[in-house]
């Protein structure tokens, strides 16, 4: 083989190698294949069509250049650049499709958040209405109770005080008959208070032994509780306790003070939060 023949052979060998499909086109085909077989086909058909069109242009350029014998060497060949552009279009279509999915998910989550916020507001409004109702009922009941006996607002709740001399005979724990109408009104007012709880406290003066006073206060508180339960107050709502002479509200040295200390207190404890 002479030198000239070798030169010509080498030239055509280089040309043949140059005619092989450029890597950019191989990558573009593979990227398009991957993207078109995924969710992008459904989510972003327009973007995928643009990628296909760009890929077709790259394929056409490659075929044309192959037929005309142009080497796939920049800057002569357009195929690598067109393939690069086609690959990018496929990638863009895929990202746009994924962005659509993300946007849908964002919308779904925001809708769920709005629904939760609405539900919370409705619950808060209902609770507020419940509190207002409870306060109104308490005010109405307090007004009714104020007609019956002394009513005070304390930290532990609304306290209704019934004078012992009115409700009980001296040294007795049975309810006086003439006190019953008053207790009926008390029962009616307490029923209006609905879900509140009631604590009946029996108190005595300091006359007599501690044991006697304690037992008397317990029995008197029980008598009032039993009467109220009998007249419609749930036994689960009401408790009775005897406190004897431990919590005087007046001077036990005077007759008037002792009379004030002999009492039954009904503490209305609100359950509204």
């Amino acid at each position, binding site marked *: 083989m002479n030198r000239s023949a070798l030169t010509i052979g080498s030239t055509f060998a280089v040309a043949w190698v140059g005619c092989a499909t450029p890597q950019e086109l191989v990558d573009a085909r593979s990227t398009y294949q991957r993207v078109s077989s995924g969710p992008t086909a459904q989510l972003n058909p327009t973007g995928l069509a643009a990628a296909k069109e760009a890929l077709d242009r790259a394929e056409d350029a490659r075929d044309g250049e192959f037929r005309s014998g142009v080497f796939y060497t920049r800057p002569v060949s*357009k195929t690598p650049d067109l393939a690069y552009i086609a690959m990018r279009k496929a990638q863009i279509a895929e990202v746009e499709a994924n962005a659509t999915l993300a946007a849908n998910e964002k919308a779904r989550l*925001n809708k769920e958040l709005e629904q939760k916020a609405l539900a919370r507001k409705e619950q808060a409004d209902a609770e507020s209405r419940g509190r207002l109702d409870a306060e109104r009922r308490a005010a109405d009941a307090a007004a009714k109770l104020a007609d019956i006996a002394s009513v005070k607002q304390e930290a532990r709740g609304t306290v209704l005080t019934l004078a012992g001399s009115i409700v009980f005979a001296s040294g007795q724990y049975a309810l006086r008959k003439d006190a019953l109408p008053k207790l009926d009104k008390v029962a009616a007012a307490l029923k209006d208070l609905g879900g509140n709880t009631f604590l009946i406290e029996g108190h005595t003066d300091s006359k007599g032994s501690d044991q006697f006073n304690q037992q008397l206060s317990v029995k008197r508180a029980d008598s009032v509780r039993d009467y109220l339960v009998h007249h419609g107050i749930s036994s689960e709502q009401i408790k009775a306790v005897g406190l004897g002479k431990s919590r005087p509200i007046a001077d036990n040295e005077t007759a008037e003070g002792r009379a004030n200390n002999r009492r039954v207190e009904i503490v209305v404890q609100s359950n509204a939060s």
Partner: protein
Amino acid sequence: MYRRLVAGLVLAISVGCATTGAVAPERIQAAESAIQEAETAGASKLPEATPYLQLAREEVDQAKELSSSQYGRRSEMMLQRAGEDAKLARVLAQKGSLDADVKQAGERLKAVQ
């Protein structure tokens, strides 16, 4: 004889390469606008998008250099590539922003449940 053939082939290639003509300034401006849009979308702050933004910038620079040379057609191609790279950077940034929103909404929802 053979030397003439080889020389002719090289000449033909050279003629093919020597497509002259500067790229229209509007084409460069369009590619630069695409880069600007990607930057506005936050591509320069998103690691997934940054490489494409950088490619786009480099391609515009190359296109400008080529535009003033004999390779005008190649310059046009570089601008097209720059446009696609910039667009990819932009959509990646937009998706990144949406992903962040989804994550934030998910966390808020988790907090209220």
